[in-house]
């Protein structure tokens, strides 16, 4: 089957999930009480807002990841043909990776990969 199978799969996933959720919606009558809707935090009312902005060290990783992700994308076509092309391909990618590796080393040295 061709690309249309993707559609079929999406449909199947939606049908499956929606079906399950719908059954519960229809058949199960839950009780209502004011506490039920509140966020669950070990049985204690939440303090302060949840959707605050806060400092996380994650974003530096995401930044660097993005760069490497692009690199990865270029690697795929290369990997397919490397056997046919032979040494020149290795040199090409060697240069490519080397330059990126420099960046990696830089990041490492600057401590960007250290958790903050």
């Amino acid at each position, binding site marked *: 089957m061709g690309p249309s199978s993707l559609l079929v799969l999406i449909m199947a996933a939606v049908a499956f999930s929606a079906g399950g959720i719908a059954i*519960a919606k229809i058949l199960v009558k839950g009780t209502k009480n004011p506490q039920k809707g509140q966020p669950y935090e070990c049985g204690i009312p939440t303090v302060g807002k949840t959707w605050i902005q806060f400092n996380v060290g*994650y974003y530096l990783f995401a930044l660097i990841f993005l760069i490497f992700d692009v690199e990865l994308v270029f690697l795929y076509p290369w990997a397919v043909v490397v056997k046919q092309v032979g040494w020149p391909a290795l040199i090409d990618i060697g240069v490519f990776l080397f330059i990126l590796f420099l960046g990696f080393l830089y990041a490492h040295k600057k401590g960007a*990969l250290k958790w903050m």
Partner: protein
Amino acid sequence: MWSLSNIAGITQTWLNATFNPTIALWSEFVIVGVLVIALFAVLGLGLVYMERKVAAHIQIRLGPNRVGPMGIFQTTADTVKLIMKEGLTPDGSDHFLFNLAPFVVMIAAMLVLAPIAFAKNFQIWDINIGVLYVSAVSSISVIGILMAGWASNNKYSLLGAMRSGAQIVSYELSVGLSIISIVVLSGSLQLSDIIASQQDGWWIFKGHIPVIIAFVIFIIAVTAETNRAPFDLAEAESELTAGFHTEYSGMKFALFFLAEYINIFIVCAIGATLFFGGWMPLHIGNWQGFNQVMDYIPSSVWFISKTLFLIFLIMWFRWTFPRLRIDQLLNLEWKYLLPISMVNLLLITVMAIMKWHF
């Protein structure tokens, strides 16, 4: 011979002969849809059961054994119960995204099934960019997790989601690089080609130590990508109660649960395909007799058993190791796995060009 591909072929010819093309096509769609849903359900039930049994035996206990013989209906009961449980949507949450997130995760998991070769010639869509497609689509699920974590309006969820976001994207690199190592060796992205290239032996045997290193990195990285212990920081029970799905209940929770196991299955299937030759029987060079004996075992059995082996490996990890801390987790990726897999990739390239592999 009764093989899956034959059945599929016969069905298709029968459909085409009996109905006009449109109806045949539609009924084919319906059959595929029903089949994948069934597969989903069976996989979910089976893997959860397996996990519980494996855990039980590692932990010197019996595990579920009272619902049905050997407790095999245990997970069925769980599923029915989860379906019949109230699905809550917390008041303070972003209702739309909260309810959307499980769908996103499910769709992502479902889409990845498309290129997987379950048996010889038995694939939903042998897409020509095979493994690239897999790693692309599986990266959608991180959005689902972030969405779930954010929309719940719960601090634990948010923290869990952020952790898993950073974790999944980081480990995607290592997964990608170890996949590329095999692509280098087999020269194609298409899964059927990759399997065909292992006709005379699986890559894990043919590729010397670099491929084994690639395999180790792969299995570590996919464990992390599927949020499994020891990398289960996103839902670290002892830290963040239940992580990003703290607020989910009933079927919505079940979908996350299910998607987790489907994802495990998928990554293990990919691992089995790349390193263990998918449905390819164990062939050794040119031992004709041996190879023929091996061919008698149906290809689907080969595939399933290899995948189950990898799944078992991942479960084994889970029930043995303590959890890493978040900074150690990222350290492991950026300081160890990534540089090693880069160097390893170059090694494999050299090996491929020099034709050092068998």
